[in-house]
């Protein structure tokens, strides 16, 4: 896992918190104050006093200010903020959905970070917890929420302790009009899926639910549950202070703002980077300094898509990455060096994802292991003329056939691999596997562990 000391903000010429002080010519320059990690320094968490000294108090509504929620949502709408948990859904629409619902809703802060190659949620909660809490209080005031529940994974003890400390600092002050509780939820891949998280908060199994109509609100008890990603709420806290135009200073018209990206794999400085949306993929990974020639980049996490080195000029936006078979998803990039075998790495990803199925839906329970086995055989490279047809059938057999999007993500990732690594696929099916097949994975072994960053 990228460590806390490898966090860098692209907003300053020197990498904040990096062990070296290399300046990086590729880093886009974004106005410093209005960014998530801009004011943060390595190895310490912003306490309430330093947070307020840096950003000033959040513009929470005054008593009886009935027009405030509408104004706040209009501000978020003008900013063009979209959710940063993976779906990139417009945040203003999500806020309007449940505003003033009765019984009063619960605002859930999703910092579950199920993606093994992601570290942004824990970085946010460890470094700028008050920014996330500001955003949560603002959103909770819009919704008229009864309470805020911050969910972190049970094995991230340091993150948990830090957010609890921040909540305690604010409790009973004007900065906490809506009470906050912090919960440690189970840490499997699908546990952060919003219906799974809400199921767990309802003392259920913590597995995704079947939602034929996504427009029907999730419920905790009898009230609606609104689940927002921690990064999304951090952006809301900034937009509320500095205005929608300040958010739009970074990024393009269709994808404004900055975004947190966790870069890992074949790079010298794995970590969480704050970049302007629309920065090219190549420039984003350059900030983490690839150690050797790049063959491809896994974008959007294990359920995202591979993008070849020929497409490194693609802007980092949901639309542009989607057009080349990739995804922004929860902000994850894994760099694959040229010496690696993309098929062997894809087989490892598929096997991991098969193990992370919630085990509820037949096509996922049986289909993902079958898909992983197809890929493992393809990686081994014994000649098999039926291999590709079988692989294609298994991709189709899992795609869209679960209650949640877990199998769909695997289908997309494997499809992209067959396209990006097509030359290797041809060689493997002809019985000539890559030399790297039997070597160790180039995906950093640390990303397989659900550990916490070393402080």
């Amino acid at each position, binding site marked *: 896992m990228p460590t806390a000391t490898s966090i860098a903000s692209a907003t300053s010429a020197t990498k904040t918190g990096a062990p070296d002080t290399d300046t990086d010519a590729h880093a886009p320059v974004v106005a410093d104050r209005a960014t998530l990690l801009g004011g943060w320094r390595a190895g310490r968490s912003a306490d309430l006093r330093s947070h307020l000294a840096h950003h000033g108090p959040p513009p929470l509504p005054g008593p009886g200010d009935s027009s405030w929620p509408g104004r706040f949502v209009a501000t978020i709408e003008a900013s063009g903020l979209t959710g940063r948990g993976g779906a990139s859904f417009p945040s203003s629409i999500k806020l309007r959905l449940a505003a003033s619902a009765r019984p009063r809703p619960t605002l859930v802060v999703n910092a579950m970070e199920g993606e093994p190659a992601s570290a942004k949620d824990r970085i946010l909660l460890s470094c700028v917890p008050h920014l996330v809490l500001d955003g949560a209080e603002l959103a909770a005031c819009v919704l008229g929420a009864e309470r805020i529940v911050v969910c972190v994974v049970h094995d991230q003890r340091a993150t948990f302790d830090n957010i609890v400390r921040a909540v305690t600092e604010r409790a009973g002050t004007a900065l906490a009009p809506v009470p906050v509780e912090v919960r440690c939820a189970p840490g499997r891949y699908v546990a952060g899926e919003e219906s799974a998280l809400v199921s767990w908060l309802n003392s259920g199994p913590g597995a995704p*639910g*079947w939602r*034929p109509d996504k427009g029907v609100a999730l419920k905790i008890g009898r009230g609606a549950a609104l689940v927002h990603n921690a990064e999304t709420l951090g952006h809301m806290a900034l937009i509320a202070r500095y205005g929608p135009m300040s958010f739009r200073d970074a990024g393009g018209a269709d994808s404004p703002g900055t975004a947190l990206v966790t870069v890992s794999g074949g790079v010298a400085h794995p970590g969480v980077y704050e970049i302007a949306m629309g920065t090219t993929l190549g420039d984003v990974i350059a900030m983490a300094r690839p150690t050797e020639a790049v063959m491809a980049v896994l974008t959007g996490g294990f359920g995202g898509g591979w993008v070849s080195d020929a497409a490194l000029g693609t802007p980092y936006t949901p639309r542009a990455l989607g057009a080349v078979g990739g995804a922004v998803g929860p902000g994850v990039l894994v760099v694959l060096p040229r010496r690696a075998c993309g098929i062997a790495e894809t087989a490892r990803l598929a096997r991991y994802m098969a193990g992370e199925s919630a085990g*509820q*839906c*037949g*096509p*996922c329970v*049986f*289909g993902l292991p079958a898909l992983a086995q197809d890929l493992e055989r393809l990686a081994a490279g014994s000649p098999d003329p039926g291999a590709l047809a079988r692989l294609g*059938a298994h991709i189709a*057999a899992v795609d869209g*056939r*679960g*209650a949640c999007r877990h199998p769909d993500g695997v289908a997309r990732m494997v499809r992209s691999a067959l396209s990006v690594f097509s030359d290797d696929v041809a060689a493997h099916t002809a019985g000539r596997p890559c030399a790297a097949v039997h070597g160790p994975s180039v995906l950093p072994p640390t990303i397989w562990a659900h550990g916490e960053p070393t402080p």
Partner: protein
Amino acid sequence: MNAVIKVNPIACTAYGYCAELLPELVTLDEWGYPVVDGSPVPAHLLDLARRAARECPRRAFVLARAPER
């Protein structure tokens, strides 16, 4: 009513009655789970589709109103 078939994949445990009753609209994958394509159920198959929904031992086979176009 324009109806579509939806299968609750969590509830479904691959009894396969739906494919027996309605082979025109339901096929089974290699593990025996139903595959449906989401297109509207033709009028002449509606009664069979209702029966498949009624007789699904897991109540996983659902006839839902088709989305407005």
